């Protein structure tokens, strides 16, 4: 029973992190129909920006109000989104709308490679540390184990982010406009919807979510070149399980993967690497479109 509790807690912590790093990917696919391979680099950008900003915050007197570092993390993610989002979407991606998925995969993969080098140009190869926000909230004792309270903050943020994105898409006028664009771009355009603006806002939001994932992860790791590579792989696994373009699917997929991985580490460590892809394979056998993707008639 105790073991089950550990699996549940570990799985939820990992699942929450997975959701935050993958929700932006599924949002961008849902709205823009782009498999954004650069998502991992945007996550890394968020982590680097956070490491620099929080480092500067503490260097310039932030120690008097350490909790302000959490606000700095969010601001760093917003800054990344506002700079890179419109630039990428307006400057590059819009030229490829309507093209084959493979073209866009190649284009965003190119962006991924460029951004990886841009990161090295800006921040170099020396790792950055900002572990202060990680230890700021202390520990929580659950049975014989200590957990870092920050991990539960990540769970809380993921719930808030998930709910906010869902609410925005389903309960606001702007969200309904986006859903209309997703459903039928041409029809929305003829009804007077500024589709370009919708695309830019949605892509920028996707960049913000990727950068927020990086910002929340930065205090737990050493921020160094290459951190975005692995993230893109697990993020793809999560959104494929949930169904490409589905926010609810990404949430359920992330929890599935988180719990499966935690169970594997505790019960069958040999299967740890394999388990994520086993879950994905099983889901795809029974639901080839993912858990929450409805089969759609193809428009000709």
């Amino acid at each position, binding site marked *: 029973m105790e*073991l089950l509790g*550990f699996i549940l*807690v*570990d*799985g939820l*912590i*990992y699942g929450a*992190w997975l959701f935050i790093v993958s929700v932006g990917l599924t949002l961008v696919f849902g709205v823009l129909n782009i498999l954004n391979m650069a998502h991992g680099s945007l996550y890394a950008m968020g982590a680097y920006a956070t490491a620099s900003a929080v480092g500067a915050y503490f260097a310039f007197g932030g120690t008097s109000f350490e909790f302000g570092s959490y606000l700095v993390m969010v601001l760093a993610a917003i800054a990344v989104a506002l700079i890179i989002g419109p630039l990428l979407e307006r400057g590059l991606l819009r030229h490829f709308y309507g093209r084959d998925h493979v073209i866009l995969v190649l284009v965003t993969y190119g962006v991924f490679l460029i951004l990886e080098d841009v990161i*090295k140009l800006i921040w170099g*190869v*020396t*790792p950055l*540390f900002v*572990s202060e926000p*990680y*230890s700021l909230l202390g*520990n929580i004792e659950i049975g*014989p*184990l*200590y*957990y*870092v309270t920050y*991990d539960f903050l990540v769970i809380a943020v993921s719930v808030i982010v998930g709910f906010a994105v869902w609410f925005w898409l389903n309960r606001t006028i702007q969200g309904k406009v986006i859903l209309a664009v997703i459903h039928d771009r041409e029809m929305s355009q003829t009804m007077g919807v500024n589709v370009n603006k919708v695309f830019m806002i949605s892509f920028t939001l996707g960049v913000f979510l990727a950068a927020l994932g990086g910002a929340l*992860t930065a205090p*737990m*790791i*050493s921020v*160094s*070149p*290459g*951190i975005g*590579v*692995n993230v893109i792989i697990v993020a793809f696994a999560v959104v494929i399980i949930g169904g490409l373009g589905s926010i609810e699917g990404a949430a359920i997929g992330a929890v599935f993967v988180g719990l499966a*991985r*935690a169970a594997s*580490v*505790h019960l069958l*460590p*040999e299967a*740890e*690497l394999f388990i994520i892809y086993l879950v994905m394979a099983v889901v795809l056998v029974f639901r080839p479109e993912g858990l929450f993707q409805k089969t759609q008639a193809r428009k000709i």
Partner: protein
Amino acid sequence: MSLSIVKTTKRSIFKMLAAGALIGTAMTTAVQAQDGEKFKVGVITFLSGGAAESFGVPAWNGGKMMIEMLNKGGVLPAPYDKPGFGGMMIEPTVVDEAGGATKQVQEFRNLVQREKVDAVVGYVSSGDCLAVPPVADELKAFTILYDCGTPRVFEEGSYSYVFRTAAHAAMDNISLAKYLTSKGVKMDTIAGINQDYAWGQDSWADFVASVEQFSPNSKAGTALFPKIFAGQYGSEISALIREKADVVHSSFWGGDLQAFVLQASPRGLFKRSQVVLGAGDHVIPQLKNKMPDGVIVGARGVNGLAARPRGDELTNVLWEEYEKRHGVFPVQAPFRMWQALLGLKVAVEKAMEANGGKKPSQDELAAAMKGLEWTAPSGDIKMALAGGHQAIQPNAIGKTQWNKEAGKMELVEIEYYDAECVNPPNGTKAIDWIKAGFPGAKCK
């Protein structure tokens, strides 16, 4: 008669003087030829990717610095005070190791066939160290593997032109087990977290086998092998804490090790178990006091913080210059680069002594390197294994302790192990030697 003797003597003296003059002229010509000559070294190491900041970049920082010092001459203490390699200026060409084994084989061919380097010094990745040697032998290109740890290079292969100037990984884990034993650390149960590739798997196997020799009742429990560069270890840390093992072993390196320490430390893993890190020294400059006290760490040789307390002149000169240039102390990677370059210098000069002072051929270099012994900042290096192609070297293990006054991490309670104590003898596979109870080990 006496006149005749005088005449003969005069003639002999004249002949001798003439011969001497000829030899002198020839020698001068040879030295002059060398004066303008260069020795081209291809250096291959990670300049980008996950292993760059931990190994590749510090190694090249150290290598570049040493080449400059050697070319200048008179900077390093004897016997390394003569300029360059036997008077030839060293000209390095550095290549990024990123990109995988196939790319590296191509890069190696480029260096040898297009750049016409006289020697190649390279490779951090065990995969590259396994892929390049057959090509080196095919091209008859003198090659030094300076960093990688897998014992398989010479345990499963035999090469004429390939040498590894650093000990392989078995030494690290044997030393850890010896240290735990000598310090009386309880090790009834051991657990491990290692990266899921040859380095991690071999390190864990060597450590478990070594502990079993010193503590036969010891039980190996949870063995976790997360993917390299995973970054998130929450579940693994829970599993390790739940296990309550006496000792937790890890051969993690780079960002993975830094993330593991940052995540495990606040959760109390380092207090609940004695954590041992086979290659842990290189993250100390970045982690500083975030690395907990009392962690048992190795540096894959008497490198980094383990080398400094011995205070020999060679180490001090290199240490101070490195700190001055890079604002951080040298960790294990520059030490391994230094021992490779110094070994190459000794081999080149030995070959030149044998061939009358000419720039040595690839065969002459290989012959000189075989079984060579030299002194490096990491101690006395001996090419004692694999028929003189694989080095053995002394090792050191210590405990971390943060010095508040100085604001820096120190290694305390350091124990040094002779090369012959923690490395298998020639012709024996490391794991077989461990399982046989270290026969023939020479330990003080």
